[in-house]
């Protein structure tokens, strides 16, 4: 089976949140993807740089499939600072060991940006072999060995808040760091501050399936074809919030709301950045379909490369 953009869209989007994603968790699909890369569930090493753990917390909100299924059936999460049982130096050494053992056959998930100023001193992630390891050190060591890197959240994808104006830490995105270091491992950006759980799970599963069908290099090539010029998968980030917003008729009639709590009228008057933002929040919604930013207040453009500086002031009209 070859994976087209259309298939992916079909799989990943649905009018009901998570509906499409759950179809990917049909037992036959699960079976197809387990065994990808190395004959068992692919190891995932999850690094946290300069971030807030919000991306991890968002992933815990995965509904269909349940996060339990992701952890026990789909991937083998060998390192994750917020959930793993292990700790200290042995946990770090375990991570480096997995990277050697599965060289070219594991995924590196990165949450948070990489602060490079002062030799990386602004983010020490642990100790290994009696040496302090910074986020910079860990990226240099692990990224070249990974099959692919998932840059999760706007911090990892584009720098995000830790890299905003006024920052002194030299925080940068995974892509920018790779360019600086000459690392050529493929990167998929899944921005959002935080990203929707469907965006993360959907991308992982589709990547695994493409690899299963086409082999590692060609499979990743298929995935890369789905990315826009900001490195994000178009099925999730291919449409503009404003163009699809239920308030668009109000916008066109120049009917604007007056305060943040008023539900009538387009919200551009109180700062909505929907016209700047590419994401499918308008149909997917958040937290199991409960609500979304524009319905509740305003879009602040958190999926965009220039978030937050280019999207602020958040409560001023465009």
């Amino acid at each position, binding site marked *: 089976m070859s994976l087209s953009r259309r298939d992916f869209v079909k799989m990943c989007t649905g009018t009901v949140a998570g509906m499409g994603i759950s179809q990917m968790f049909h037992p036959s699909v699960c079976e197809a993807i387990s065994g990808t890369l190395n004959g068992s569930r692919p190891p995932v090493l999850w690094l946290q740089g*300069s971030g*807030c*753990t*919000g991306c991890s*917390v*968002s992933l*815990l*909100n995965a509904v269909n499939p*349940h996060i*339990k299924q992701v*952890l026990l059936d789909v991937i*083998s*999460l060998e390192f994750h*600072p*917020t*959930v*793993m*049982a*292990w*700790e*200290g130096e*042995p*946990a*770090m*050494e375990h991570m480096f060991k997995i990277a050697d053992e599965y060289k070219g056959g594991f995924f590196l998930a990165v949450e948070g940006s990489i602060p490079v100023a*002062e030799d990386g001193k*602004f983010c*020490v*992630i*642990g*100790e290994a072999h*009696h040496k302090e390891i910074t986020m910079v050190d860990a990226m240099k060591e692990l990224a070249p060995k990974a099959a692919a890197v998932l840059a999760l959240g706007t911090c990892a994808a584009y720098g995000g808040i*830790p890299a*905003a*104006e*006024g*920052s*002194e*830490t030299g*925080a940068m995105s995974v892509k920018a760091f790779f360019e600086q270091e000459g690392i050529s491992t493929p990167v998929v950006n899944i921005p959002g*501050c*935080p990203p929707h759980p469907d965006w993360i799970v959907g991308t992982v599963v589709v990547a695994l399936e493409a690899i299963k069908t086409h082999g590692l290099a060609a499979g990743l090539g298929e995935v890369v074809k789905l990315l826009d010029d900001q490195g994000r998968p178009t099925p999730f980030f291919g449409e503009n919030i404003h163009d699809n917003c239920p308030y668009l008729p109000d916008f066109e009639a120049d009917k604007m709301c007056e*305060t*943040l*709590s008023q*539900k009538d009228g387009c919200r551009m008057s109180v700062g909505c950045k929907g016209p700047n933002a590419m994401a499918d929040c308008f149909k997917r919604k*958040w*937290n199991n379909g*409960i*609500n*979304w*930013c524009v319905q*509740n*207040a*305003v879009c602040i453009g958190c999926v965009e490369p220039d978030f*937050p500086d280019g999207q*602020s*002031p*958040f*409560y001023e009209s465009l």
Partner: protein
Amino acid sequence: MSSCARKGAAGHGKTAHIAIDPVTRIEGHLKAEVTVEGGKVVDAKLSGGMYRGFETILRGRDPRDSSQIVQRICGVCPTAHATASVMAQDAAMGTKVTTNGRITRNLILGANYLQSHILHFYHLAAQDFVQGPDSAPFVPRYKNSDLLTDRNKGLAAINAAAVDQYVEALDVRQICHEMVAMFGGKMPHAQGLVAGGASEIPTKDRILEYAARFDKVKEFVLNKYLPVVYTVGSQYKDLFAVGQGHRACIAYGVFPLNDEMTKFMMKPGVYYGGKDHELDPSKIHEDVKYSWFDDSTTGLHYSKGQTKVSPHKEGAYSFVKAPRYNGVACEVGPLARMWIENPPLSPIGQKALKEHFGLDAKNFRDLGEDAAFSLMGRHVARAEETWYMLSFVESWLKEVKPGEETYVKPEIPASGEGTGFTEAPRGALLHFLKIEDSKIDNYQVVSATLWNCNPRDDKGQRGPVEEALIGIPVPDIENPVNVARLIRAFDP
């Protein structure tokens, strides 16, 4: 495999140095270094390994942007940061929030309290006591982990039930996030907490949807969370006798029950030297002698606070500043709030305390200072606080008025300043905002992590968690399970 970075010889009467880096199952980057002598910790240092510089990033921005930016300090308790920030903005801009706005804010923050406490016990702390499945990320783990079933083989069924509850709790905390999202837009990082109130006016439907979810959460807290904490506690009686620390705590007051902000679900106060004191915010200062910040900024009141990072400063060992109240290192969190408020204990708690400890306890302080200020006492405080919250959330659901205004449009003044005092689930939190030329001139955050996980102050006094580590038993230095167990009990 050696269990930890160690220097020095092991064995009886000898000194060993152990470093745990990273301390996992917490939010952020933390390293713990302890010195062990005669099977006990005799010295401890906590080092915060990350600096992002929110204070400098906020300077010069529109004051209203701060509540969005500061939520990104922590993805587990973003609503608390947003709450402190909008309160600081209200104070600096002179905005008076409506009654319905105040109650809606309580419903948003309240749902995240429930989420955070459940996540803390099951997903962060439980693996310190309960054996998970033999599959990553639950393995590898310490060889000699002193788990429930190691202590009592007869508890295999309870261990298995707790593992099931781990999975169930994932759903329950997700439901709590749905409750936040109902009035807050989404989680993590809610849009709905704004200067001037809340952006969502609750409707009848939404209140019912919130209430239906709340009922499920309540059932879980009553039937699973609270009982399991006492069951675990009854097997680890020794952990009620360690980790007392400075026996000093501070709380700012949270969940305002009136518009004048003079009555709270959990009241403000300070406790040290065996006495209660009224909270006087002018007594809060931050030392930086052992932190990677410029020495010229030490000892400042938070409203004069400066953030001048100095990452190579000799002798410093953490990016965390050391806040002190009147010079005292105070711990914050559920234990601090429960000790200061001293509310009634749950019927489940009263029964369990009688049964397992022979203790006649009606209110929280009846636990006694020794047991309350302990490793296990902090878990009990968190579970009891979750129980105590239930009836308050119910009362806010009755009080909130469908369709009534929750928002007052703020006017940004040319200049002004204000402090927002609240409590994150993990402890006392203040945000200070100073506006000049209608822009942020100074923004200072004193978070719960700063209060709990700080290094030594200018006088060389240990931070609260550092002090609580003293005396913690480490019988086997290859498996120093109690060290991070103590740290995690704080929800750092």
